[in-house]
């Protein structure tokens, strides 16, 4: 498999961006991840991850509209690129194929 390696955190950020469909930027991504996973995430971590994803070509960004609570500053809005989408897809497929080969998933969970 020839795809760029994605860290677990990057994957979650990428998924979040994908879910938000064009409305994703630093603060809302942070809040969303906090809400969905319950882990404490800091803004700088999100920014760093977004930048890495952009460097890898998984997301692209453009500047959005300024708002009052931002002190009149614009936000950088992220969208997932085709490459990013395909990568997510591949990750998902790999996972699913493993899950499918697991004969007794219930047993696994109870034994955990």
């Amino acid at each position, binding site marked *: 498999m020839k795809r760029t390696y994605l860290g677990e955190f990057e994957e979650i950020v990428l998924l979040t961006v994908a879910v938000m469909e064009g409305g994703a*930027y*630093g*603060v809302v991504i*942070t*809040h969303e991840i906090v809400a969905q996973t319950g882990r404490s995430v*800091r*803004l*700088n*971590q999100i*920014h*760093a991850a977004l*930048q*890495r994803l952009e460097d890898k070509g998984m997301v692209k960004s453009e*500047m959005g509209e*300024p*708002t009052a*609570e*931002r*002190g009149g*500053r*614009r*936000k*950088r809005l992220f969208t997932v690129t085709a490459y990013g989408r395909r990568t997510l897809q591949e990750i998902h497929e790999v996972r699913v194929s493993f899950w499918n080969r697991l004969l007794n998933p219930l047993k696994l969970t109870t034994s955990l």
Partner: protein
Amino acid sequence: MHTTPPKLADKLLTLFCAPHRLEEVQGDLHEEFDYQVRQLGERRARWRYWWDVLGFIKPFAIKRQSSDTYSTAYLMNASMLRNYFRTAWRSLVKNRFYSLINMTGLTAGLAVGILILLWVQDEFSFDRFHRQSANIYRLENWAGTGSSRQIWTSTVAPIAVMGKKELPEIKDAVRIAYNGMYTLFKYKGKAINEENTLFADPTLFSVFDFPLIQGNPANPFPDNHSIVLTETTAKRYFGNENPIGKILAGTDRNAFKVSGVIRDFPKNSSIRRDMVLPISLLFDTMYQNRTDGRNRDNDFATFNFDTYLLLQPGASISNLTDKLRTIHLRNKPDDTDLTYLLQPLPDMHLYKADGSEGGIETVRMFSIIALLILVIACINYVNLSTARSMLRSKEVSMRKIVGAAKSQLFMQFVVETTLLFSLAAVLALGLMYVLLPAYNQLSGKELVLDFADERLWKIIGLTIVGTLVASSIYPALLLSSFEPLKALKGKVSARLSEAVFRKVLVVAQFAVSVILIASTFIISNQLQYIRAKELGYDKTHVLGFFMRDDMSKHYDAVKADLLNQPGVTAVTRASSNIVQLGAQTGDNEWAGKEKGETMFVRPVAIDKDFIPFFRMKVMQGANFTGTVSDSTHFILNETAVKAARINNPIGKSFRLWKRKGTIVGVVKDFHFASMRQKIEPAIFYYDPSQMWALYIKTTGQDAKQVVAAAERSYKQYNPDYPFEYSFLDDVFNNLYKSEQQTGLLFNVFASIAILISCLGLFGLATYTAQVRTREIGVRKVLGASVTGIIQLLATDFMKLVVIAILIATPIAWYAMSRWLQDFAYRIDVQWWVFGLAGLLALAIALLTVSFQSIKAALMNPVKSLRSE
């Protein structure tokens, strides 16, 4: 209500965050803050904001956007600079051996150069710390006629007062006199003999920057028995008690009340004492019970006072001295030989009284050496980097072909030099720090590396920048000027092998070394000469000390007692220390003295056994006999007879002060001062009441016992006073202490300079051997002998060294003749010295070069031929 996030945190963010990211990051942070204010309240949100901002101090947020433009005309472009540093570092690490040689040379050169310059700066700082130093002058006078004409740095007392009163140019005056009168001070069981004190006008504390830290500046001496102490002196007596108002007991029911404390006199002050007594006390003591009518306002005959004048800015010096002379002559018309002169205070330390060069010569000599050492270190760098430039011609050519501009390549090599220099500078600072204690001991200074002192940084900065500029420009120009096509075809080597410039530098380097070696020889020869020169008296194993009143009165008993001690062979006495006679007088007369003529003689009262004691030679006439008639007899030295132009002196009449008598003898000239000075007229007279100095000749074996016996005898009469004695040999050595120090320092610096030169030569030789590996291999295969190859490699360098010797000899000869001018008694500069120096330089160079040559010659040709 809209709350804003902490301003300081925002400012911090704009400071470090990359500009192209700032907007989104700050926007997000503000939005988050807004959200958190609603969630947590303002106070915690502010904390959280700080926390979030700090989180962005990460490379991803700080890193600036790389510029997309490929060609930039701007030389200092950040990414280009980064590249320069990277390549510079790589090349330094790649050529470890040469970097090490360069670094060692530069570090040693910089450290020693800067240390010398610090010394020089300290010398120049003398007496300049006074705010008014530019307007303070020392008043001196020319006195005497003919060969006796000389400068006295001390003047009569009234001239200061009258000058200040009558002449508007003189703002203020300070008179200072040495205090030998009140030396013993006691406080609560502590008794200290203070040898280093002075009498002064109260203006001492206002004209000079010696401010009182305790006491009343308007009236530092409330009465004659007031005393001002330095901090250290005050601590010596009173510890941590407040010294003001304390009583110091002196002798003879004298007592002094401490009326002020000043900071210790700075180390770079020509005036440095421990205590200051009011000069009016000296006047009172001097002029009480005088029958000749002299007092402090009319005594124009006692030249005992150092006078400092504070002048109005821009006052005419020559006018002023004329006016002072007029005042003097009005009060004492027969002083026609006297003229006044003024020496600026800052010149006092480095120039002699008449304004001619004194210490400045040494300062200049050392400045030149510092410069030479730095130049030699720079030459090393320039030579090695240009010699090895051939190896980099390909790199340069590639860069040019890819599109590097000449200016960029120039920058690249300048940065490379800068990097090496910075490393060397840091190491040099460390080295200086380590060397400083030894250096201080050697130079007799108390220098400190005070990194808070801007003057230190000025010197360090100027030195480093100066050497950097000197050694970076030429190699950088040369390297950046290669023509790529020629260089890639290998044609550059032909041009470089000419390298006249490099040869010139090597010659210069070795010329300096030869000069330094020759100078070292001559200086040490001269120092040896003055120490071994026949003094005209025998001072070996002689111990001397000054008696006080009581002991002097019982001299005969003391002498008999001492002669009984084991180890004592003879005892005698005189009025002063024979190694360094002090006082001088022009108050004399003889048959044949012309009107207006003044001859200054050094009068010494001696006992009848003084001349045999010191094994002096009586040339004519006889010694004193110990009878009453001696008090009207004089013995002159040869110089005095010559200066007074007396033929057949025996039996001629002579007057010294009020003492009239006849000349009974002539003694052979003897040296009673440093060899820098000519022997001056001296006269012996006989007056037991003035013979304070006691001399004991010992066998040399029982010196300790003799000292103990002398001390016992001394304490018997003066239990209060500490016994202070010295061996004449030590006193004599002290005369040449500064010369010895200079000589030693010169040796050390010269060795370092030579060492650094050799280091450079070593590097060059290594390089040459390396480049010629293949040639040597081929020669060996064809049958060349090892000696033949060594010759081949060494001859080139030897030629340069020989040229250097030829150039250096006349320069060294000139410089050393000038240095010797300073000594009245000196060696001739002999030619063998230069021969020896040249030979030594040649040997050193040969040794340095041959190490590499032999290595190259012994190499197995199979290996060397296969290597390329």
